[in-house]
């Protein structure tokens, strides 16, 4: 007779499906997963400690180095927090250009997340298509900001560079091509029977559990919570009449599909920005001063919060960053992975929450 034994199965810290090192310790009974724990500490940067005591001019570059995937939003939230604290106004054109760059950053982050998921469930073809599409988005980021990853595009009182008319046309033309690709890949994902088998009804995160763990971003919105989106509170997004998307599936499939939905939404937002883009300056000026603030923004993975305290010279006295991956990884390990039917679903479920260890270990 076959024996069923209780064992602890550690995944990682180095795992072929994980983008970054983390150790997920799964408690199993036979092939059932009864619980999971996460061990961190393999890439701690101590970046918050490095920021303390430095002038804001240095910290704005450090902020976008918290995460290599969603660097734009770290730049944006840090600068907007300083602006709000010091009453610095941003020209309309610059505010819209910030949204354009932020949405491009969201697009490349979501595409990378969906690539990782497809790669994890062994659908490499779709994964490679998605990576190829991400390159087009990265090229657009480079076109506008001059850099692919750490752009430092957003500065107090505006943005670093204006968008030339020929670049705007090129951006819109590329977005048309990307939209066609997204719709094609969405169809492939939605209709793929093997994808469905590996993704539907797997890694369930109920609405109650999402609330309990304070899950944010697409992870929360895939559990039927459209209101969990900080863009709703952002003045520029309000002008663009932004409405969040959500799904009720609560499973891996919904989390991937909502990122596809948000890709289309980002394209639409960029088009709206482009249509509303007024003539005018992109840098209004202004120097951050003393103050204390808690400021949130919507990163690709969810709510990103900066707690900042500065002195008269704009030096950072205290700073604390709450990244969305903290909440989402916790929700993943303590709810999605708990009672999983198979250990084989653990890597894909973990990846479906789009975990960013760099963000978690600031």
């Amino acid at each position, binding site marked *: 007779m076959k024996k069923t034994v209780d064992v602890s199965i*550690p995944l990682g*810290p180095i795992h072929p499906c994980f983008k970054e090192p983390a*150790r997920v310790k799964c408690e199993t009974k036979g092939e059932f997963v009864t619980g999971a*724990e*996460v*061990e*961190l*500490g393999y890439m*701690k940067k101590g970046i*918050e400690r490095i920021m303390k005591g430095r002038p804001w001019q240095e910290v704005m570059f450090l902020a976008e180095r918290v995460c290599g995937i969603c660097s734009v939003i770290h730049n944006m939230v840090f600068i907007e927090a300083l602006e709000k604290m010091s009453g610095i106004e941003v020209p309309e054109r610059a505010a819209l250009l910030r949204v354009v760059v932020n949405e491009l950053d969201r697009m490349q982050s979501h595409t990378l997340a969906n690539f990782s998921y497809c790669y994890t469930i062994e659908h490499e073809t779709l994964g490679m298509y998605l990576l190829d599409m991400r390159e087009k988005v990265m090229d657009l980021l480079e076109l506008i900001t001059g850099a692919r990853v750490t752009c430092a595009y957003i500065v107090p009182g505006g943005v670093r560079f204006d968008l030339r008319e020929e670049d705007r046309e090129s951006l819109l033309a590329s977005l048309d091509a990307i939209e066609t690709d997204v719709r094609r890949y969405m169809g492939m994902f939605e209709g793929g029977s093997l994808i469905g088998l590996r993704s539907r009804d797997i890694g369930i995160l109920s609405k109650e559990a999402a*609330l*309990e*763990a*304070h899950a944010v971003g697409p992870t929360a919105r895939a559990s039927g919570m459209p209101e969990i989106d900080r863009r709703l509170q952002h003045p520029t997004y309000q002008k663009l009449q932004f409405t969040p998307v959500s799904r009720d599936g609560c499973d891996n499939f919904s989390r991937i599909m909502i990122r596809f939905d948000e890709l289309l939404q980002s394209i639409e937002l960029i088009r709206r920005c482009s249509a509303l883009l007024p003539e005018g300056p992109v840098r209004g000026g202004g120097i951050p001063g003393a103050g204390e603030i808690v400021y949130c923004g919507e990163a690709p993975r969810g709510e990103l919060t900066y*707690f900042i305290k500065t002195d008269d010279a704009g030096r950072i006295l*205290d700073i*604390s960053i*709450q990244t969305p991956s*903290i*909440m989402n*990884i*916790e929700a993943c*390990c*303590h709810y999605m992975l708990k009672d999983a039917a198979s250990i084989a679903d653990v890597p894909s479920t973990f990846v479906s929450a789009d975990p960013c260890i760099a963000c*978690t270990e600031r």
Partner: protein
Amino acid sequence: MSAVIYEKDLTAMKYAILVSGRHDRVVREIAADLQVGVQQLRRYIIRHFDMMLMENIPARYEAGKKDDSLMEPVARELGMELYTRYIPLFGKKQIEPVIDEVEMLVAEGKPEEEAIRIGKAMLGEVLSR
């Protein structure tokens, strides 16, 4: 047999998480609420929580404070939901007898505020064991 590579003692790293600005504020708030020493609470958390749950303490605490679904005043004041679901310091079986006892004290005529204070101290004792 060679030494383990990844099975490390995580106490120092867990402590580093707990003494960071936001975590420290929340831990001190909970310790004051439950009338236990800060170090005592830190030790309990380090023993019972994994690193990810510890990282998420401030966000969970915030979510727990906002949750107003619990209607019974005594249970709400004692942090029935906050300390069992959001910050899982206690099991339901540990907190329910305390709630019963506090409700009994209130029924016997003790002012509710004092009865809650006694109940919180009883919860604090659970952490000290």
